[in-house]
């Protein structure tokens, strides 16, 4: 990819990581992917009272080619899922996804034939935001957590190391329904 991926591990890479992270998080441009009720709360978050412009995010890019962040706001039906994947593919790396609302995170209250039970069946998700719909302040909290996440993102050999560790942990993890709850 870019020059920053080719730097060897060390002090220079760490500084570049911090700089790149700072740049990326402060001008994250979302792609419009408002589907249902959560889209209205997302528009309210972008409007006057809960202002997303203070985080550099007031331009909701219509074209996914120019966007970094896809906020999947609303329920994704089986008919819409291929379109969702196509939009995600058209975004240029680095890209992040926030699953906004219960329907995007897990299918929400619509556990039926028509709704994809969580957009992580279709795209990789970075932040899951519960709520039906989540308040604009909750959306901003999710975005700020994503900002911290982006700031700490590693590049080059550090990134590959982290990816390997995460994958190994995921492969050895106990499935959720076999985990013991608080009582056991």
């Amino acid at each position: 990819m870019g020059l920053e991926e080719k730097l060897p591990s060390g002090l220079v890479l760490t500084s570049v990581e911090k700089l790149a992270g700072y740049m990326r998080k402060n001008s994250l441009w979302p792609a419009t992917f408002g589907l249902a009720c959560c889209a209205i709360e997302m528009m309210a978050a972008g409007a006057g009272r809960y202002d997303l412009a203070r985080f550099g995010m007031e331009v909701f890019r219509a074209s996914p080619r120019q966007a970094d962040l896809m906020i999947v706001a609303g329920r994704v039906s089986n008919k819409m899922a291929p379109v969702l994947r196509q939009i995600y593919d058209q975004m240029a790396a680095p890209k992040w996804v926030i699953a906004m609302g219960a329907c995007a995170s897990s299918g929400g209250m619509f556990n039926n034939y028509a709704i994809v039970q969580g957009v992580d069946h279709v795209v990789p998700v970075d932040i899951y935001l519960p709520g039906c719909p989540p308040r604009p302040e909750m959306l901003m909290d999710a975005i700020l957590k994503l900002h911290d996440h982006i700031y700490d993102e590693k590049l080059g050999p550090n990134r590959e190391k982290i990816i390997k560790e995460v994958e190994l942990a995921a492969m050895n993890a106990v499935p959720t329904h076999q985990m013991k709850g608080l009582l056991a």
Partner: protein
Amino acid sequence: MSTYTDPYAASRETTEGTVFSVTGGDWDSLVTEIGQAKEERVVVNMGPQHPSTHGVLRLVLELEGETVTEVRCGIGYLHTGIEKNIEYRNWTQGVTFVTRMDYLSPLFNEAAYCLGVEKLLGITNDVPERASVIRVLMMELNRISSHMVALGTGALELGALSPMIFCFREREKVLDIFELISGLRMNMAYIRPGGVQQDLPAGALAKIRATVKDLRHSFKDNENLLVGNSIWMKRTEGIGYLDLAGATTLGVTGPVLRSTGLPWDLRKMQPYCGYENYNFDVVTADTCDVYGRFLIRVNELEQSLRIIEQAVDKLEKLEGAPVMVADKKIAWPAQLALGGDGLGNSLDHIRDIMGTSMESLIHHFKLVTEGFRVPAGQVYTAIESPRGELGAHVVSDGGTRPFRVHFREPSFNNLQSTSAMCEGSMVADIIGAVASIDPVMGGVDR
């Protein structure tokens, strides 16, 4: 240049001709290829992800230059199977599903459903007056917040950016009232079969009065900006023409029908929830175009404010009256109260059901787990939502679950008229016409 090939970029031959995907940076090659093609007409796909199509609507346009020769709408991208889901829940839980259909006017969905259930139960006259007045109050507030989104997003799609900010600012004031009364800004599940979920909290009436005064003053911002604005009028006058004959045969209702000059408003013609006791006018226009519908929505805001003021006066006189039907076998049993840890079951109610009254405990248990039974039959109730006639066809087989609930959504029928409105006009006019229909895709697809 990278060697990464975009799977969506290549032009490919299909049975319908050559399909191009425009990905950016390739305009020259696109124009050359189209120029070499024999076809004069181009089929363009707008959406389903598009900033101007008012939600997940797919418009397939056949263009000859800038003129549209055919418009077809592709819908179903938000189909949630709500109607089937309700068949597996009891009657009261149906409210929480129904409220998410047309998500900009959740209280209207709830009201249509609850009026249908009450008609089946036969308790339409037993719903307390205070509950009906609260329903009217909440519905008119919802009408204001829905029209704000319609005006704001309509203006945004036609290029005016400030009305969007103004409208959402006003909408936030209305959402504050919703939060005060029902606890949620959207999708409140506040109107239940038999009445409303809980009474207004202290201070609500004063806040509503203050907000109404504030809104009357702030609506002028939008009016001054757009009404009579020559650019706005050039964009909207004569666009999206649909006359009375077209509207009635297509089943179009709401502001689109009233823009043809016919004063058809179910609140006046077939009143429900006590609407016959309120003074308000039915707003019409006679230009049958986008500008007429815009003016109707702006003026309906003032009429809603009038109704809200009258409702608040009525509520002051009905202080202390019940908000749920008296029949304990139907009335939702929970009494909520604000405690130290938020809103929850009131301690008085818990003391009552656990300590004092066996019947209350039984009712609470049976109503929450099993739900009430509704005698078999079918009804169709219709109310006037901000988009038109919202009808609920409710069928019961005598059980605790709805047998079939079908919603006649105004946006579904209104959107059909897009072809009639737009064929022969320019591409930019389609946006205006769709914005004037104000479809909410959650209602269209359910």
